[in-house]
């Protein structure tokens, strides 16, 4: 036996032992990880999981706020049912589809405007200038105000009799008589969109600014040396490079916009012109006391948002994988 053989034989058993030790280590790590996760999972289960499951369940019942104890399972009748040849239920309720359409319209328009304006603000805030910190803080103010406060503030400013906006527009002669911004079906949705854009553009700007600040500065100097026009640099360099951050920001904002409630409720109450899915669900649940039907609406709302988010993320991912080719 050569010395090397001896060495191999001597070291072999400890190696095997070490392997079992390692797997012990791994399992103890997994145990510890699970223990650390447990409180979070419990809290999530109680505050998110249980209400969600209960809402979905209530959607299959005829529960009513008057007396929840006589709740009965009715299958999918809240969604679709036929009595005497006539169809009933959420899926054939024109008011529900009106709410879905309103929500989508609101989301697409407001998120697009906020993305464009947020990008512009972010580009400005990304520049070096005196008092930049102050401007950055100031821009965030609309976002920092609680929605209920800013919505109420705007509803006064938009008031048809006492509002300052009518006053100003009439003062400069743009309109001849006061407009009932939030009551007029032609302007109500635009009023809501305008307030939402005012409020949420800073959020978009902040997320996009974070993306901009990750970009290397040297490529801009290289572009400058190459004499590439700034507009071209923006579309060919900046935009492609911040697209991942932009997709995340748009998804965040779209999620938020699709479940819009407070702003619309404060500005226009239950008006059908601006009613969103959330406002519809609340109206069924609280005003009409139809817990079962309202829960069904809330469940559909959840499904619609889940579907749109999945589609957006898939689209984003497809683009990202193209990048790495």
């Amino acid at each position, binding site marked *: 036996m050569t010395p090397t053989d001896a060495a191999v034989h001597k070291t072999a058993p400890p190696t095997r032992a070490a392997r079992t030790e390692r797997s012990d280590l791994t399992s103890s790590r997994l145990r510890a990880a699970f223990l650390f996760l447990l409180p979070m999972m419990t809290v999530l289960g109680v505050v998110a999981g249980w209400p969600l499951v209960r809402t979905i369940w209530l959607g299959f019942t005829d529960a009513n706020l008057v007396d929840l104890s006589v709740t009965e399972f009715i299958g999918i009748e809240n969604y679709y049912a036929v009595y005497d040849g006539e169809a009933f239920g959420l899926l054939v309720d024109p008011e529900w589809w009106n709410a879905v359409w309103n929500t989508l319209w609101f989301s697409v328009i407001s998120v697009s405007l906020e993305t464009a304006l947020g990008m512009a603000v972010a580009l400005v805030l990304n520049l070096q200038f005196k008092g930049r910190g102050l401007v950055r803080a100031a821009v965030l103010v609309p976002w920092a105000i609680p929605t209920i406060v800013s919505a109420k503030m705007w509803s006064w400013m938009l008031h048809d009799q006492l509002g300052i906006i009518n006053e100003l527009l009439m003062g400069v002669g743009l309109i001849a008589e006061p407009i009932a911004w939030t009551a007029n079906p032609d302007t109500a949705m635009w009023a809501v969109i305008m307030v939402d854009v005012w409020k949420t553009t800073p959020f978009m700007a902040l997320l996009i600014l974070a993306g901009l600040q990750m970009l290397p500065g*040297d490529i801009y100097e*290289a572009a*400058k*040396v190459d004499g590439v026009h700034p507009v071209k640099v923006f579309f060919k*360099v900046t935009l*492609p490079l911040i697209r991942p951050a932009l997709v995340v920001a748009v998804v965040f904002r779209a999620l938020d916009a699709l479940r819009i409630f407070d702003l619309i409720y404060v500005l226009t109450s239950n008006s059908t012109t601006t009613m969103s899915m959330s406002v519809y669900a609340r109206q069924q649940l609280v005003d009409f006391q139809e817990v079962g039907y309202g829960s069904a609406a809330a469940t559909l709302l959840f499904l619609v948002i889940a579907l749109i988010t999945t589609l957006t993320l898939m689209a984003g991912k497809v683009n990202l994988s193209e990048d790495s080719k």
Partner: protein
Amino acid sequence: MASVELQNIIKDFGSTRIIQGVDLKIEEGEFIVFVGPSGCGKSTLLRLVAGLEDISGGDLLIDEEVVNKMSPKQRQIAMVFQSYALYPHMSVFENMAFGLELAGGSKEDIRRKVMDAAQILELEELLERKPKQLSGGQRQRVAIGRAIVRNPKVFLFDEPLSNLDAALRVQMRIEIAKLHRDMQATMIYVTHDQTEAMTLADRIVVINKGRIEQVGSPLELYHRPANKFVAGFIGSPKMNFLPAEVVELLADGVRVKALDSGSVVVPVEGSQLSVGDRVSLGIRPEHLAVSATGPLSGTVEVIEELGESHFLYVRMGDGELITVQGKGDAKARRSEKCNLQPVDAHLHLFDAGGVALPLLQQHEDKAKALA
């Protein structure tokens, strides 16, 4: 290709003067290297030439035209950055073509220019790749290619090899030298690496604290440094400086006595000196040898063996640590006393202000013969 002239160039950042009035004339087709310690202003000076920073005072001329107010594009310069500065989402081809697309050339024209540059830099196989799929050396080649396709009047390099590992740095250095020879282009190259400066430059500009210390060919700076700063900066390991005292003024030089050691004759013009003056004796490590009769003596503290040569770090009687470079393996032992013999012809003498005393002509000839 073009000449570049800097006339009393000044740059202030706020109230701090970074560049303190630089005058320099760069000839057509010359390879100029700015070298200096970090923070000396060499990169700022390059960025002033590029047009990435505004000039606070003085004039910059390219082809005898003042270009102070011109954009980098109008100056027709191209720049290679230390960090490569490639567009991460574009392929190698797109990176090189991006600057050309606005110039108005046809698609075929752009393609041809990019292919030509790719051929020079051996990038043809990589044209469809993204920067992150390239090695550091390949990325730097793309960055150089991006400069070549624009056919600029002046090439600017800002520490282009600093991010590469040692082996690649040597290889790229040779490629850049070859590129300069083939293109005959005016190039300004910034580095803190004196090997790059020595090997690439037609002329080296040594910069310190926003001022030019000396301009000259690599060997000029090595053999005739104008002052202690240049003497210490050019050459590796750096020159030893020993405090010394003038003992005697002779026809063939100045006899000085290093404190606590014997005396040597330095072949410099000593008419401005008088006996008893404090001076600095400069000896390069490669111009010192261990010898039983040498006038300098000390104790060997550390020995570094490099195989083909070795370094001795010798503590002199007055506490100075000096470096000695010898061929082959070291014969001295650690903690042993040893005597050192300098090569007289290669000695340097600096006055109290750090300014070099001029070499005597006959010794300069002798030094050349020895070299």
